[in-house]
């Protein structure tokens, strides 16, 4: 009997312990080196007068990759420390957020919460500001940025610009919306029409707003492109007759008709199942009508070196369709009485978990009663 009770207790404890985990946020060990890197960035790169600010660490969490698999079905494995510092002064409050991966600051984001930024010096122009920032960033990263700085000398930073020198493509974008004036600089390593790693710097209303640099996180793999855009589209078109997807009740959808003149293909080098960047074609096919599952198109990813299709998926939308020229019934069912029941709605999931709890309570109570009886 004692053994039986022990088993019951152990089982119940495990079940209840597991279900109680949701009471606490799951946190992973924060990497103290990430804080060192972020602070070094604040002290050596951030163009603010630190003598006027109190700097405190407000938040540090670790993102071990999303719980949702990537499009190829593989988990997205990476560890990224997310930190937020508050820079507080009498005149302004700033939130400075960081993403640190591989012990490298990958992304820094500055938000003015109150007042205006107290700058470390008076910059005479945006060109002066970004050049000075690049010089400081070069010292901080120990990564030679002289070619990036030199490219700025040849352009008007107040205009939209795209220029390439060697394997470096500089794109300057001006955005003026919602009362925000934003200038973004993007230096990308480019080869054969594909952009790989990049350093991006964004100024908003004259102040540094964001800096992103994935050069220390991703490596550049084989950049060979043996498949042209036209060949990639042909590969996609040849692949489609063998592609299908499942609907509920084991219904399979296949046999797609493509509106060929709408087909597009673009070259990307985003990380796929790896931190090594390799070029691939993203081919977008448009279907000639909406297929089951609200599917209006298909997307294929094709390695630009080998021509292998490594992803094919649907593109669907979240709107019910209506044919206003038809006299037929709408796609939706007839209206039901919307009057409410007074009871709380309980989904099957909720009923399930409540059921477990009730059983657990029952077993615990029964165990105590049995023990008491044995005592007597």
């Amino acid at each position, binding site marked *: 009997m004692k053994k039986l009770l022990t088993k019951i207790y152990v089982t119940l*404890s495990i079940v209840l312990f597991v279900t109680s985990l949701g009471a606490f946020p799951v946190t992973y060990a924060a990497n103290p080196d990430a804080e060192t890197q972020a602070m070094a960035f604040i002290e050596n790169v951030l163009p603010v007068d630190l003598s006027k600010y109190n700097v405190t660490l407000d938040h540090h969490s670790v993102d071990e990759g999303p719980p949702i698999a990537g499009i190829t079905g593989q988990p997205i494995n990476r560890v990224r420390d997310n930190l937020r510092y508050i820079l507080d002064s009498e005149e302004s409050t700033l939130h400075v957020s960081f993403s640190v991966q591989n012990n490298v600051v990958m992304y820094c984001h500055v938000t003015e919460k109150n007042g205006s930024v107290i700058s470390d010096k008076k910059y005479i122009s945006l060109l002066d500001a970004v050049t000075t920032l690049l010089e400081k960033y070069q010292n901080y990263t120990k990564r030679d940025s002289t070619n990036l700085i030199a490219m700025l000398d040849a352009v008007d930073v107040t205009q939209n610009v795209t220029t390439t020198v060697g394997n470096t493509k500089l794109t300057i974008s001006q955005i003026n919306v919602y009362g925000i004036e934003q200038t973004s600089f993007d230096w990308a390593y480019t080869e054969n029409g594909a952009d790989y790693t990049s350093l991006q710097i964004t100024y908003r209303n004259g102040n540094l707003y964001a800096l992103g640099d994935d050069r220390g996180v991703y490596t550049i793999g084989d950049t060979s492109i043996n498949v042209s855009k036209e060949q990639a589209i042909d590969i996609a078109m040849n692949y489609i007759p063998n592609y299908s997807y499942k609907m509920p009740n084991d219904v399979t959808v296949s046999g797609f008709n493509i509106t060929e003149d709408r087909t597009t293909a673009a070259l990307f080098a985003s990380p796929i199942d790896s931190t090594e960047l390799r070029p691939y074609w993203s081919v977008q096919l448009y279907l000639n009508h909406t297929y089951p599952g609200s599917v209006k198109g298909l997307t294929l990813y094709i390695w630009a070196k080998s021509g292998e299709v490594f992803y094919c998926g649907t593109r669907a939308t979240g709107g019910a369709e209506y044919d206003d020229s038809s006299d037929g019934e709408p796609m939706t069912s007839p209206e039901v009485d919307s009057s409410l029941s007074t009871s709380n709605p309980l989904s099957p999931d909720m009923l399930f978990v409540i059921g477990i709890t009730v059983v657990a309570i029952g077993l615990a109570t029964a165990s105590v009663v049995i023990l008491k009886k044995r005592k007597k």
Partner: protein
Amino acid sequence: MNHKTTIKTTIFCALLLNLLVLSTPQLISGNIASATVGQAVFWPNNFQDGTDADGELELTHDTCMYIMYLLIGRGQYGCYYSPNSTITSYCNILSALNNYYEDNVVFSKGHRGYPYWNATPPNWNHLSLIDHDGNNVKDHSHIYSRTSSENNVTFIWHCETAEKYQTNTTPQDGYGYYGMPYCWTHNSGLVCYGGSGTQVFLGWVNDSPQFLDEAEGMYNYAHVAYYFWYYMCNGDSVEDALDNVSYTIFGDETYLESPLRDWLVVWGNKNLELP
């Protein structure tokens, strides 16, 4: 039973009771009377055969669960979780949020309908969220009458939910108020990507992407939804969360440079954090 066994039994029972206390609210997804922030996740996807592919249903289930966990993981508040949401569950949960909580956070993912498309004359002002059974959760009746200016952060991931709204105009016709931004917030002063106020509404212009749709690289739109809430639950403002999502998913430093701009639209105060 000797004294030692009695002590062990008491410890076991105390442990079990402790765990029960901790686990039960999590299991039933909240509704804790003392909380001042109400949170809810709806996903009425499977409304009729042919609407969603198998993979979409599975991914939506998983993603909405994770979003619920993120919201619960904030540690202070429960979260209503409504899979296969019906009109009744929308109405009951929205009423509960409105009646028992001071601030509300809502996420809903599914399809959009036009409840009066077949009326005479047809009406294209009003939108609905199609519930699990294919019925219209109408903007002016089911939603407006059970929401208030206490709906602080609302993200409606259905088609066209950012439309039918113009700042400083109260959208109304013979049926009543229309459009999701107004009907969820009761606020006609929401500015697009604004910087003040106590409310923010996120919705889509034109078609909303399904979660399975690829976004960029390894990421699909389920990751966009997940990371938006991940960053919000880590204390970001809407603007910061969208910027972080843009860099994480699309490699673009800011939302304004990303494909989301002008598609996933922010009405109201982009500086708001979760209450």
